[in-house]
């Protein structure tokens, strides 16, 4: 059962938490994405076109979505590990908050941070390329579902990790490779057949490809196909995260 009290307060607190340290949680990733854009577009803009689109314009949606995903993961995972390590998780575990409310609040706050950073990256990079926004609904659907998936993964990582080192390993050896090797910087059609095949097993590829479709109306695979994969991943991870929270794994002895 979802009651507004516990859920709404936890959501508010999680959003306020990242907003209080906005330089670190919002401004820094926007600057990082902008630097990627400046460097890659300077080197490749004159030489590369993807599906008839200039490289800088092609890159912008990829960077936006990558920022959404990485920051959604960072929000839920860092909040949980920090409160576990300091012991302040007790303030969330003592009140009558259901596991469903915990899940919804942490993941929704992760989506909010992802969207705030993603919007910031979009605004900061808009003047460098030419974006068409041909299907805004697809843009929103993939941003929200992608943020939800990485927010759920963040909850899982935050619950599983006992120390910051373990969380960093999860982030650097799983999340980073999945996002960097997902077509943010290239179309997978430019890859050799073997790597194209491998890329089709990376769910982040479908998030980026579907998201980019919303801007240009062209993509490596059908947006419906991407929606199917992303939707299935979301449901699967939601189920897994809810099961973890319900069992009290590493939260309630």
């Amino acid at each position, binding site marked *: 059962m979802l*009651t*507004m*009290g*516990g859920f*709404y*307060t*936890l959501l*508010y*607190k999680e959003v*306020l*938490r990242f907003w*209080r*340290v906005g330089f670190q949680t919002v401004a820094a990733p926007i600057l990082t994405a902008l630097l990627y854009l400046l460097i890659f577009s300077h080197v490749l803009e004159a030489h590369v076109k993807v599906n008839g689109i200039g490289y800088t314009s092609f890159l912008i949606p990829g960077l936006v979505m990558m920022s959404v995903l990485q920051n959604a993961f960072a929000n839920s995972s860092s909040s949980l590990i920090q*409160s576990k390590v*300091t*012991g*302040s998780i*007790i*303030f*969330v*575990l*003592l*009140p*009558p*908050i*259901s596991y469903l409310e915990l899940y919804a609040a942490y993941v929704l706050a992760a989506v909010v941070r992802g969207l705030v950073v993603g919007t910031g990256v979009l605004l900061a990079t808009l003047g460098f390329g030419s974006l068409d926004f041909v299907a805004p609904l697809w843009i929103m659907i993939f941003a929200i579902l992608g943020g939800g998936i990485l927010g759920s993964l963040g909850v899982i990582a935050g619950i599983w990790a006992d120390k910051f080192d373990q969380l960093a390993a999860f982030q650097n050896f799983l999340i980073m490779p999945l996002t960097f090797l997902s077509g943010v910087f290239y179309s997978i059609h430019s890859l050799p057949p073997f790597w194209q095949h491998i890329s089709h097993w990376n769910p982040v590829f479908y998030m980026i490809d579907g998201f980019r479709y919303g801007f240009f109306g062209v993509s490596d695979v059908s947006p419906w196909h991407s929606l199917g994969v992303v939707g299935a991943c979301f449901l699967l991870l939601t189920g897994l995260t809810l099961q973890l929270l319900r069992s*009290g794994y590493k939260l*309630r*002895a």
Partner: protein
Amino acid sequence: MQSPESALAAIRVEGVSKRYGQIQALNGVDLEVQRGEFFGLLGPNGAGKTTLISSLAGLTRPDSGRISIMGRDVQGDYRAARRQLGVVPQELVFDPFFSVRETLKIQSGYFGIVDNDDWIDEILANLDLTSKANANMRTLSGGMKRRVLVAQALVHRPPVIVLDEPTAGVDVELRQTLWRFIKRLNQEGHTIILTTHYLEEAESLCHRIAMLKAGKVIALDTTENLLDQFSAHTLRVKLSSDAASESHAEKEIAGGWQTFPFAEFAEVETLLARLRQSGQRIDEIEIGKTDLEDVFVKLMQGQGH
């Protein structure tokens, strides 16, 4: 079927056991705390006090047994049970992103209470925190952070309040402020469960006391009865240093003081006569009551009746 007393119980613990690996933290604990009681839960480190409190609060799931708070099962009806309970944790924990007032408003919100400013102001005033209401938690001293933990446990006006070593490492002023406020809440009908290593606090505050050892309740009685189980008084004498060394004292204390337990005042004359007969010269005499610490030590050493 529950007895009328059980139905009135603030806390009811039935056959609760919990094992962590090789350690049996709780071993078939049965306990009832009546509504409005000021109840002490004592025991050495590792006795199972914190595990029992964690089980009450739903932070730990017992391997077996059942716990209810104000008649609400802590597992099956956890939402209702947690609304009845306020816990002041032992560890000094805080969320560094927020001020004191924000912390309390957020904690209220977790319990579904939106407009709680009047009660928050009252708690802040009673815990001498008003001047720190807008200070960030990071900037507070340890004692102030401890006060905020107490305040957080009270924001939803729980009928049952658990204080897990609330005065560990805090100054005299906070202790006095805290106990004044907690006593008032107890007089207003709140049930208080206290764990502490300061046994004089438990003796002066608690109506009833349970003592835990190795996960079992080894004593459960009123504070008065526990004290009466052992010699209720002690005779302390300081013997002259040049006197003969023979003594029948229960324990010798540095500086020549010796302690003799007795039950009735009529025994004092006999004790003094015996000392005179053995050739000892008494320089000073004190008569005192056996305190909870004596009872605690004897029970933990297995000398209980």
